[in-house]
């Protein structure tokens, strides 16, 4: 860069203008080259770590299952076929794969519920942090991220200690005479939802906070001056302005919930599977890798649909605010 600049300066004055353009072009070219070079490691990692395995799964999903796990190099659409359709094991009739559909429905239902509870707890938290004096906000944000310091497995076991029959909550309730028998919370869908809400809550708080921080609270004051009720301020001013954060948070909670494996495995008691566990089963005791691959790709497509929805609704809301 420096040498080109020097040669340009030595040129006679009348040719300086086209040369300056040349220099700019040269510098830009170098910049592009440098940028490509700098991003190569990241691109390689992305390709190897994301695209590679996906391609392998795509290939596997079109092969036959080996008798003891693994795959056989023989083309078959059984994997994909079995995602949606099941052949009755006893009379060979075909029907919708009702086990898969109910597991899928449970996953979607629990993920939506988790997203909703995260929103209920996360929104006021983000509002609280955003309305603190600026120098104190970092402390609160720091506190929100503390759970991330501990391993997911340990946090999940901690939840188990709280909600088990002889756990903290039941013991306290019984000792105050509020309940006679311990409430069965562990090994229920409720437990799975509590666990996922706890684990993913920071992923809801942080994006909402990011939007809320940019919110001009003078607008809120103005609304009050114009006799808006508290609810109206929330509905007409705050929510529309932090909508991008809300949507981002919801997506960040919904997607990992949909594929959750550890939490339903430990807190759900294994009696009712979620999608992640169904996929796990196919690679383990089920010995059906093609079906497992097809199920994973189905999950991936669900996630992409959710993202598509996000892009569309986020696009709409930013379009509005620019106007």
């Amino acid at each position, binding site marked *: 860069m420096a040498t080109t600049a020097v040669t340009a300066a030595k040129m006679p004055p009348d040719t300086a203008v086209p040369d300056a353009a040349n220099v700019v072009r040269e510098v830009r070219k170098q910049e592009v080259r440098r940028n490509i070079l700098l991003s190569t490691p990241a691109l390689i990692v992305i390709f190897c770590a994301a695209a590679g395995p996906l391609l392998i799964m795509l290939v596997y999903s079109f092969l036959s299952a080996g008798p003891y796990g693994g795959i056989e190099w023989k083309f078959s659409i059984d994997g994909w076929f079995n995602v949606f359709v099941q052949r009755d*094991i006893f009379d060979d009739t075909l029907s919708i794969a009702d086990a898969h559909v109910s*597991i899928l429905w449970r996953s979607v239902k629990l993920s939506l519920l988790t997203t909703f509870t995260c929103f209920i707890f996360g929104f006021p938290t983000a509002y609280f942090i955003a309305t603190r004096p600026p120098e104190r906000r970092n402390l609160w944000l720091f506190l929100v991220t503390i759970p991330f310091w501990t391993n997911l497995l340990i946090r999940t076991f901690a939840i188990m200690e709280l909600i088990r029959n002889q756990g903290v909550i039941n013991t306290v309730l019984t000792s105050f005479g509020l309940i006679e028998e311990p409430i069965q919370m562990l090994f229920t869908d409720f437990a799975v939802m509590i666990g996922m809400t706890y684990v993913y809550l920071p992923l809801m708080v942080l994006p909402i906070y990011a939007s809320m921080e940019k919110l001009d609270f003078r607008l809120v004051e103005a609304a009050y001056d114009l006799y808006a009720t508290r609810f109206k301020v929330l509905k007409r001013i705050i929510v529309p302005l932090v909508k991008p954060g809300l949507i981002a948070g919801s997506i960040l909670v919904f997607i990992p919930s949909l594929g959750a494996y550890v939490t339903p495995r430990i807190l759900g008691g294994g*009696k009712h599977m979620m999608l992640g*566990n169904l996929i796990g089963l196919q690679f383990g*005791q*089920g010995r059906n890798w093609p079906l497992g691959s097809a199920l994973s790709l189905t999950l991936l497509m669900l996630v992409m649909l959710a993202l598509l929805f996000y892009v569309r609704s986020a696009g709409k809301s930013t379009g509005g605010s620019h106007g």
Partner: protein
Amino acid sequence: MKWKLTAIATALAFVMTSGIANAAGELNLFNWGNYTNPELVEKFEKETGIKIIITDYDDNDSALAKIKVGGHGFDLVVPSSNYVPIWIEEGLLLEARPDQMSNFKNLEARWQDVDWDPGRHYTVPWQWGSVGVMVDTAVYNGDINTSSIIFDPPPELVGKINFAPEMADVMGTVLRYIGSEPCTSDKAMLKKARDVLMAAKPNWLSMEYGVIEKIAAGDLAASLYWNGAAFRARLKNPDVHYGYPREGYSLWMDSVAILKDAKNVENAKTFMNFIMVPENAALISAFARYANGVEGSVKYMPEDMATATEVVIPAEFVASGHFVPACSPDVQKIYTAIWTELQK
């Protein structure tokens, strides 16, 4: 310049430490979770200077899947008897000929030649036991020597029942309960087994491993589970008892085998020979509380092992216990379909 020196120093340190590790020798053991006695490991390391690295697994199939993929770096694995033929057939095991090792004579005669490994060319017993029912007798005081505890439970136990999510064991037990055999290809019987399971499911709480603490603490009141675990639960809570289903129950033997692509074959053989010494086999049993198959090891075990009904099968129930065979891929497919339906 300084960073270069640091880099060289780090690299040197790395090379040196890995060099030391290799010189002393190591052994990578891939075993079931909560199953290997740390004292056994310590003793082996002290006697041989070989360092043991243990990695856990939860079920036979995930272990099989992991090894089949390759690149695992393990030397020894401990599959159950019904899986050993699969491991051999898939060409994953090294024919280590433990039958020619110096301590082989210590094995009880009945374990020196077994169906799943004729002539013992591949495996050495680790521990063996049964799949029965463990019941908290403070909750239910009736007859516990029946699998109806799980499949048609008394009202006291409803909603407090667990079973180990080990497909082969559960399917084997339910098939015996309805008067059939494990791995049967009789579809009428398989259908009946499914119906029994589906009808019983609302009475269960969970399908989980790690039951010892939960039943001792009262989170569960009954479980289809393994005998040694039941023993360990009883030591924590004296009300927990183990029943042998008279409809028939499964026996199993987890067996140590060397992997074909093991890197430390000699160390692995040393370990195999080591665990056939009565004192050492006793250490295995003292921890996980299952019998081990080595003659004369009982006298080195904790005293309570010799009298525990969980370990020493009472004479009246001996005849109902059978080893589970490995099922054919076709039956396995039906098993999986039932299994998925059960957890939907």
